[in-house]
């Protein structure tokens, strides 16, 4: 049909809609981030996972051998083993969050696309929820999934139900630790992405994480200084999940409160910065 013969033709199909715009945002975002080779490299070259898997294997081989008692003790699999794995993945987690998250909101703001999102039946919680799921997906690939996989490997190699009877709570602890870490760090990454430009978001995020850590180290004689550090608070909470010794002297409830404050600030920043229309005064 020639162009000049075309006119507007109303849609003749039914208007069938399904709720859940957050899901569309999340799915599109996951696909877009998947195209970044660096993030795939980080996810699929998980050295700590391989080391821990070898540890599980060795433990299953020499665990009951009295000849190697001292080595077997070091290789023992318990809550601390999984906590150690998650802590070890901390830096990787931050890297993945930065690569996946720095531009998530910043690019929408820079390209003025927020007005397009919010001219649709999209609410603030859909938008933020969708973006958060993108981060949770990639964070899960380097923390939650390998940690659960290690647990399954251990179950298989134990050969009986004794390990499961004793440590059945570990998957829940992994899930809880993952949820807290990703909620706080992911929330902060989104807030930084909303507040800074896509190019500077990574630097700002590192600064927000490590500047308080430096202060905590300088004021190491004052236990309460630990509340300023996101990392210290997370490590303190992780020890609760896995029933291990607390790494710091400050209160665990205080650490939980500090993390809640960080999360609250992140949400406030998101509320402030995610608006369909930028008002320039």
């Amino acid at each position, binding site marked *: 049909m020639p*162009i*000049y013969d*075309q*006119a*507007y*033709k*109303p*849609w003749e*199909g039914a*208007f*069938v*809609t*399904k*709720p*859940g*715009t957050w899901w*569309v*945002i999340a799915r*599109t975002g996951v696909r877009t981030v998947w195209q970044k080779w660096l993030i795939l490299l980080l996810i699929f070259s998980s050295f700590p996972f391989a080391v821990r898997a070898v540890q599980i294997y060795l433990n299953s081989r020499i665990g009951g051998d009295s000849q190697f008692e001292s080595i077997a003790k070091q290789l023992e699999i318990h809550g601390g083993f999984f906590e150690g794995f998650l802590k070890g993945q901390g830096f990787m987690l931050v890297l993945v969050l930065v690569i996946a998250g720095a531009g998530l909101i910043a*690019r*929408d703001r820079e*390209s*003025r*696309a927020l*007005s*397009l*999102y*919010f*001219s*649709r*039946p*999209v*609410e603030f919680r859909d938008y933020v929820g969708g973006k958060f799921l993108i981060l949770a997906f990639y964070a899960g690939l380097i923390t939650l999934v390998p940690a659960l996989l290690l647990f399954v490997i251990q179950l298989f190699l134990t050969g009986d139900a004794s390990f499961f009877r004793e440590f059945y709570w570990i998957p829940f602890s992994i899930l809880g630790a993952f949820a807290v870490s990703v909620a706080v760090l992911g929330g902060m990454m989104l807030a930084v992405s909303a507040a800074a430009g896509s190019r500077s978001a990574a630097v700002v995020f590192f600064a927000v994480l490590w500047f308080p850590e430096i202060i905590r180290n300088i004021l190491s004689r004052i236990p309460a200084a630990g509340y300023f550090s996101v990392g210290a608070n997370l490590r303190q909470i992780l020890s609760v999940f896995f029933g291990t010794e607390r790494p710091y002297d400050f209160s665990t409830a205080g650490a939980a409160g500090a993390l809640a404050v960080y999360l609250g600030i992140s949400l406030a920043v998101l509320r402030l910065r995610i608006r*369909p*229309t930028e*008002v320039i*005064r």
Partner: protein
Amino acid sequence: MILEAAQLSKWYGPVIGVNNLSFTIGPGVTGFLGPNGAGKSTLLKLMTGQLRPSKGTVRIDSRPVWNNPGINTHLGYCPEQDAFWRFLTGWEFVHGLTRMYGFAESEACERARSAIQTVDMEAHAARRIGGYSKGMRQRIKLAQAIAHDPDVLFLDEPLNGMDPVGRRETIRLIRGMGRSGKTVVVSSHILHEVEEMTDTILLINHGRQLAHGNIFEIRELIDTHPLKVTIRCDRVNVLTSKLMEFDDVLSVEFDREKGQLTVETNRPGEFHKRLPRIVLDHDIRIHSLWSPDENLEAVFDYLVR
């Protein structure tokens, strides 16, 4: 669907963006007309629920627009500024945004394809938006606004940057939507563009409503507006004396240094018919002729006065 604004105001600190507007818009095409900075875009953002009114309300079929995302299912919005992820292809852009209305994958695909076809962008849909021309970007923006077949469509300066063919097609599309019973609001600062789309306009300047209604009535006001015409020519004295003989010529300003005169007439049509005859009869050579008043801002200034 009926769009209703009641005592609508928006101010940013001491700056007033929109000042106490009240109007009702029904199905068909309505043009928001005003010079740059008049408050058209602010008004569109208020009407699409993207800005919170400082005072007053906007309702669509009696339902408030602000803080009511559910109503967006019935709205389509094409912003003035480019709002793109430049790394996406045209297809990904339209399809992704159509999915956000909650359509199933297959239906979203069908609607996106239909919208892209309507704006004649099928041939370029697989290319990245970053490589599009301004006119193509306008078309793909239009596609995302119409893909879900909205009942109310807001188009902010939709013809900006389009080539003549694109303009003609887009005007045809907008008129077609109006005829099919949709409520279409088009903002523009170019009078003749709006005239081609609709007879109903809302004139805005400095955030205030100057007139709302039939374009011909407003046009009459414009036609009786005294018009200034500046002429650069030789034999300036002769032309000045000849022009002064006519009643409709209210004043003539003479600038010897520049060799030009500025005439103010309250019957521009007659003046323009008469001028060639005078020039020919007295062998006057005209170097240039223009009217500093023939723009919307001048008309708006007049209407404000």
